[in-house]
């Protein structure tokens, strides 16, 4: 069959892509999470590296934060100690000046404070100095104008600190507090304010505040932190790289092994994994190769055995068939002349003839079965109308049916379309089912139903004869199995017919099933996929058949069809009026 393939359409291939770039990128971005999930699922390498980076980051972050905090604390405390020492020194200096004087008038107090301030400025490292009169004193003390460096004027010294210093009046205690100091360039720096009460023996209570800028320490800390960040990042990258290298080292051989086993599974039996070194990977490769070797050996051996068996079957076929042909020719010559022999010899010629025919059938059935067993049975698929095929088979079996007294009817509401089947094999099944129905039909009607649905086409052969028990029906497809060994055989099957039919049906991807009941007859249903290679789905015909209760239901089903004329242009699935048998003789 030569079929002309329609040229493939290619009109959609050219299309300007410029206007699609925007949405395309957006879609790309939106597809990223799914892409990453895909990598996560598919790539062990990706997964390992992501996990490694994640865990390393957590560990380094923890270590970094701890280091940073402890360095920060350490820096602060050492600076604080330094600051307190310095402030203590300054306070003591001032107090010493005050203690040494005894003036009590306003002017001398002012002078005293000014000289103290000068002294403090020279002895302390701080340039931020403020001296206030302690609150809650008499007028002489408050007459002193508070002195403060510009940076300390705007509420930098908190009320809390002031209250503490006020409460500690008369002692030498130092009070401190962390603050934010404005710096010269408009920003702020971290700082410490140290407060100390001062008392002038005759001039009342005063408070000294010294501000210290911690910008240097903060800069040191941020430098350390920056270093830690960079080191951490580099370390993470390095560990990711190490993980990648290690995973590659391990995965690469596994990948090779996976590819090789896939090839092996596809039938490339000679592929092997390269063996390098003595490590665990090499051991894996060696044992894998060992397995492949033994598998290849066994498969080759099996293939050889199977080939040998097929060759043997083929040889037996030839060797047996040639002498059988001679016997057949000789037997037939004698059979044709049997009238001229004396009765005993004539009968001998007859027996020789029938048994040669039987032997021939048996031989061909055996060869057919052995072909199935060797797996060398192949389908010769062509589009065929099942109805037409069944009509042909019925015509062929008509003489036998007439001899048995059975009337064969066909009822085909569907199945006129052509389906992809091996006509020879399906014809063999139908003929075989008809032969069985005639043999066991007790001369009653035989109904052949054909119907189709979306996925399948089915033919059922129903007889109303003796039927079988359920146990017998279950074994009916076994080789050389006979329902009732004592029954006389009229058609003389080989005992392999139904076994071959079942194999033929299976080869098509179809099903052959039986329903039978003693006294009610049997129904064999063959269901085939409508398109070869597709699943069958549900059968369009019921099993058990719908008419199991009636004795002769053929009239009721409206099965008035004997033979239908074949019109190749018909593709309908409805029953058509059929003409009697006159059609087929003409050309």
């Amino acid at each position: 069959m030569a079929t002309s393939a329609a040229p493939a359409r290619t009109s959609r291939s050219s299309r300007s892509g410029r206007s699609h770039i925007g949405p395309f990128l957006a879609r790309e971005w939106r597809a990223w999470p799914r892409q990453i999930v895909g990598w996560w699922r598919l790539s062990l390498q990706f997964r390992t590296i992501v996990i490694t980076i994640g865990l390393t980051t957590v560990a380094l972050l923890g270590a970094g934060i701890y280091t940073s905090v402890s360095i920060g604390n350490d820096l602060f405390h050492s600076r604080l100690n330094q600051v307190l020492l310095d402030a203590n020194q300054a306070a003591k200096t001032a107090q010493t000046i005050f203690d040494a004087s005894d003036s009590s008038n306003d002017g001398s107090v002012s002078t005293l404070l000014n000289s103290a301030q000068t002294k403090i400025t020279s002895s302390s490292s701080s340039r931020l100095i403020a001296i206030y009169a302690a609150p809650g004193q008499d007028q002489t003390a408050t007459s002193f104008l508070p002195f403060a460096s510009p940076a300390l004027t705007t509420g930098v010294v908190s009320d809390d600190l002031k209250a503490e210093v006020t409460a500690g009046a008369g002692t030498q205690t130092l009070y401190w507090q962390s603050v934010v100091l404005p710096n010269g360039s408009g920003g702020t720096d971290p700082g410490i304010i140290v407060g100390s009460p001062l008392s002038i023996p005759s001039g009342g209570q005063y408070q000294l505040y010294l501000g210290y800028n911690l910008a240097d320490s903060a800069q040191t800390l941020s430098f350390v932190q920056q270093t830690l960040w960079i080191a951490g990042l580099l370390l993470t990258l390095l560990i990711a790289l190490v993980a990648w290298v290690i995973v590659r080292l391990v995965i690469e051989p596994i990948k090779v092994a996976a590819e090789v086993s896939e090839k092996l599974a596809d039938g490339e039996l000679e592929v092997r994994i390269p063996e390098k070194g003595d490590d665990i990977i090499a051991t894996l490769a060696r044992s894998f190769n060992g397995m492949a070797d033994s598998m290849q050996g066994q498969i080759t051996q099996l293939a050889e055995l199977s080939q040998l068996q097929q060759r043997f079957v083929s040889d037996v076929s030839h060797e047996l068939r040639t002498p059988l042909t001679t016997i057949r020719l000789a037997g037939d010559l004698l059979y044709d002349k049997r009238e001229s022999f004396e009765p005993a010899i004539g009968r001998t010629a007859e027996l020789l003839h029938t048994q040669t025919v039987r032997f021939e059938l048996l031989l061909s059935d055996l060869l057919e079965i052995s072909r199935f067993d060797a797996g060398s049975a192949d389908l010769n698929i062509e589009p065929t109308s099942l109805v037409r095929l069944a009509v042909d088979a019925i015509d062929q079996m008509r003489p036998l049916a007439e001899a048995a007294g059975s009337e064969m009817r066909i009822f085909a509401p569907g199945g006129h379309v052509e389906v992809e089947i091996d006509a020879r094999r399906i014809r063999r099944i139908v003929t075989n089912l008809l032969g069985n129905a005639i043999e066991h039909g007790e001369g009653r009607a035989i109904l052949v139903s054909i119907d189709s649905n979306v996925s399948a086409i089915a033919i059922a052969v129903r007889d109303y004869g003796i039927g079988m028990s359920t146990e017998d029906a279950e074994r009916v497809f076994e080789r050389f199995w006979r329902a009732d060994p004592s029954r006389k055989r009229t058609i003389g099957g080989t005992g392999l017919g139904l076994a071959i039919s079942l194999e033929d049906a299976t080869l098509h991807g179809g099903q052959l099933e039986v329903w039978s009941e003693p006294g009610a007859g049997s129904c064999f249903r063959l269901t085939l996929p409508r398109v070869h290679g597709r699943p069958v789905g549900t059968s369009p015909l019921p099993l058990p058949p719908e008419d199991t209760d009636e004795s002769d239901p053929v009239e009721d089903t409206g099965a008035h069809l004997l033979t239908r004329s074949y019109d190749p242009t018909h593709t309908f699935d409805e029953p058509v009026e059929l003409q009697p048998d006159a059609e087929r003789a003409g050309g």
Partner: protein
Amino acid sequence: MDARILVVDDDPALAEMIGIVLKAENFEPIFCADGSQAFAAFTSSRPDLVLLDLMLPGMDGIEVCDQIRAESGVPIIMLTAKSDTTDVVKGLESGADDYIVKPFNPKELVARIRTRLRPSTVVAAAVTGPLLIGDIELDVAGHEVRRGDGRINLTPLEFDLLNALASKPQQVFTREMLLEQVWGYHYKADTRLVNVHVQRLRAKVEEDPDNPRIVMTVRGVGYRAGAVVQPATSG
């Protein structure tokens, strides 16, 4: 009748038995038991038909078939113990007209031989003048096929096949109809016979066998004759 039939078979008993059957039907059998001598036997005896076993000592039956086909269009019927697809198709592709699967019976054998020996039945309705199919002319009485002035050599079977199609140009022939008309099978037969021989025929008559104009395929049904084209230069 006395048609001469060359029986090429290595099994002496079978060859003798076939001889007996053929003689009983008034044919004249000639025997050859070796594949390598089959062609020599063919050229010396010039038989009307060859019965050829596929499995032969000396030379494969398919090679013998090729050799004879290269020389002559004489009907060849293969005797084969195998009905397996590849062997049968190989035999048909090398030019055998028909095949019989062993074991066969005498009636079958004789019927097959008679079909191949009798002159084309399709011609029975005597046609006046040549038949036209595509740009090809069939002279039925003279058993000649011409395209323009060029003569195309066809075997009798290929001629019958083309004749069957050309004689009813309106009709679509199913493979079964062709099997009945050309090969004489009255019921189920191997449709590969038709497929293979249509291909062989196309290889000879079509100008482009991949794009046939003479023997057209009707998908899912069979074949029909291509539309008649008036030859550019009428001979």
